């Protein structure tokens, strides 16, 4: 039996994501390896894990246009699909996950659920509390230009940083 996070890691990698595991204490280093600046982002809700100074929160449209990386929390993840749930109401989570070429999602290991039934149930809680969210799996892509192209309207590269002790 592989662990939930192990399964998530495999599936997300299959979907084209880079997955990095880290302890909260080493978060800043792990993040630095995945970030290309300038970076925009949305605040992280995990205890003693926060965005470094260089990240612009509450970005304006021009900040978004200029950013190379967007960093957002993942509300939770679905192991079987390698999907992360990104909030799109309030705050700049959605814009930061969609406009820059690279998206870094920060996920607490305890927030990984197993299958889609559990994923939709958890999503239902967000929805019923008045929130919007998206299951993002891998980078944006299109097959509409005669071949598969990674990087359509959304990011071209996605990294998930899994914080193992959160």
């Amino acid at each position, binding site marked *: 039996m592989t662990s939930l996070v192990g399964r998530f890691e495999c599936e997300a990698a299959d979907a084209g994501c880079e997955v990095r595991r880290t302890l909260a204490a080493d978060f800043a280093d792990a993040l630095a390896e995945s970030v290309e600046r300038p970076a925009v982002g949305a605040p992280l809700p995990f205890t003693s894990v926060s965005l470094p100074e260089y990240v612009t929160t*509450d*970005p*304006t*449209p*021009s900040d*978004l246009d200029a950013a190379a990386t967007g960093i957002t929390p993942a509300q939770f993840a679905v192991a079987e*699909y390698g*999907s992360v749930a990104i909030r*799109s*109401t*309030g*705050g*700049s989570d*959605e*814009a930061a996950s*969609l406009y820059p070429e690279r998206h870094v999602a920060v996920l607490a290991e305890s927030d990984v659920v197993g299958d*889609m*039934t559990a*994923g*939709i*149930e958890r*999503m*239902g809680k*967000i*929805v*019923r509390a*008045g*929130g*919007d*969210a*998206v*299951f*993002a*799996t*891998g*980078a*944006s*892509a*299109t*097959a*509409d*230009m*005669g*071949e*598969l*192209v990674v*990087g*359509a*309207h*959304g*990011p071209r590269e996605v990294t998930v940083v899994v914080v193992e002790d959160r």
Partner: protein
Amino acid sequence: MSRATREGKETREEKAARIRHLLATEGESVERNTKGFNAGRYDAVRELSDYEELKDEARAIKEDAISRLPELIEQVRETVEENGGTVYLADDAADANRYIREVCDDADAETVVKSKSMTTEEIDVNDALEADGTEVWETDLGEFVVQVADEAPSHIVAPAVHKSRETIAELFEARFDPDRPLETADDLTAFAREFLAEKIADADVGMTGANFVAADTGTLALVTSEGNARKSVAATDTHVAVAGVEKLLPRFEDLSPFVELIARSGTGQSITSYVTFLTPPGDAPTLDWDADTAGEGDRDFHLVLLDNGRTDLRGDDQLRETLYCIRCSACLNSCANFQHVGGHAFGGETYSGGIATGWEAGVHGMDSAAEFNDFCTGCTRCVNQCPVGIDIPWINTVVRDRLNREGDDRNFDFLVEGLTPDEESGRLDLQKRFFGNFSTVAKWGSATAPVSNWLARTPGVRALAERALGVDSRRDLPEFKRETLRKWFESRGGTRVEGANSGGTAAGVREAVLYPDTYTNHVAVERGKAAVRTLEALGVAVRIPDVPDSGRAALSQGMVSSAEAQARACASALAPHLDADRDVVVVEPSDLAMFRADYRKLLPETEAERIADNSYELFEYVYGLLENGGDADALRGAERETERGEQIGYHSHCQQRTLGLERYTTAVLEELGYDVSTSDAECCGMAGSFGYKREYYELSMEVGESLREEFAGDAQVVASGTSCCEQLTALRDDDVPHPIERIAPRN
């Protein structure tokens, strides 16, 4: 943007020319893409251990939702209004467009950006808005391509599936004259993204569709890959979502099986890059590039629920299933005809593929369905692929039947009048009457053979047949045998199994009726003889009673009443044999599919059940006999000991595969020492009468060509269906028999 609608009726010649043109210009791209999706689908659903359960669950949710539709509409209205949005229930396209134009007018909209939505294609909202001077941009890249090309989508999920990278590059060069040359797919994507980013930034209204709408929470679920839907919403402060009423699901949690199935069934991905759950208006900040601010997210939201014929579909016992469709595109990608010709031929004003017949009949009317309904040959390959279990061929048959009753092609009635004792009115298209009554033709053909065969080869007769009946003169016609299978059987004195005689059969001797289908009895008599010898070698006392046509031919032409009458006659002829506990063994898979599947729609339940339970495909039966102690040495395989490992290519019949019966032939051939290779092609392209028809001959040959290529390295090929044998024989220029002729003992 509607597909070119025809003034008056297109002739067969014109239709053939249109198909030929599409095969040449779009066929290659469509084939590469749809076959890719189809192969991906097989892999992606195989990963699901509970695939069948998920399909059942999805089906049950849809059945429930559609049965309670009026209630769900009221519920979603309340929820969305409580959330702060507006719901407009539009009766038809004009009503929806009027409302949307008002919303855009109120928002002083100069530019509207859209994400992909077939429902907005259905109402032609772009035309309506553009007539008001509003700019409309499709932000889904595939939709953008067809918008720029001023074409209609050729596929419900991948609208530009008919375009290659090269044709898109030419299109963009001509239209936009870009600063740097656009060569790779990456270049094209980057160019389109930048172009559209400006439009999105300028837009005043964002328009989306919805794949599903949860009535209890007012949530829209959008299944996309590019990320354009959310951008279109986030950049504007007015969001209009357009969805057919059938998109409503009772509860948010009902989404689960659909999220698992929709992408797998469509393009073969386990999930698309983005599955977005929006419960508008929501408070995501509105991005304003002019002011360079991320605003408050105080958004106007309008949910336009479209009826446009759906209430009538819901009341239609035969077509209601159409509303369960989640537009995944599995039935397009798994269809051999669609794979070659695409949605510009196999599609109506808006929708494409097999299920489009139901959609078009429902939302645009019978004229639109009439244009392309014949492309569904009833091969049934889509049936098991549909995630909500819609009987797509049946929907096509029903619509064909209704169209038949409206027809008025009477010019050459004298030709078929005597031959066609059908139940349909004399208004039925002659070509359909001819093929639908093939058993009568065959009876006359055998009775008068060889004269009938000479006659059929006479140029004048072929020309007349082509002109009047649309029978393509490039096809070899079946050659009728003077001695039918039944006559041969009688003249040899019936079965030769000991212990069986006309007075009764000794206890312990297994008895079977070999069903004398029209082809086996009149044309492919050798395979019937081989079947008799095989069964007898395995100790079965065979009978070949006079059982009439199963009704397959009539059903395939949409002549449902004739098929029903024939099914009743066939059932009564079989009844005494079933009473006497005899098994029914069937050579022709399409007739077996009648007994096993279609009769459930044509006969009372218990009667259909009894026939289904007691009928067997020939090799399924032989396999069972061998498993139960039958002596394989009695078959020809035993004589071939020295040749073990002999290569043989086997093409199973489409309907046989849908019933899961391909493996028996493979298993028996392997047990007898053959090294079997099987085909992947979904259908041979002949599909009963389809390949004989003047207007479809070239498409049929194109579909067959894929199959021929698969067997290019095989010295000998066998096939289960008569039409598959004929098609492969024509393509290989070599005899392709039924596999029974390879295993039957010689006399």
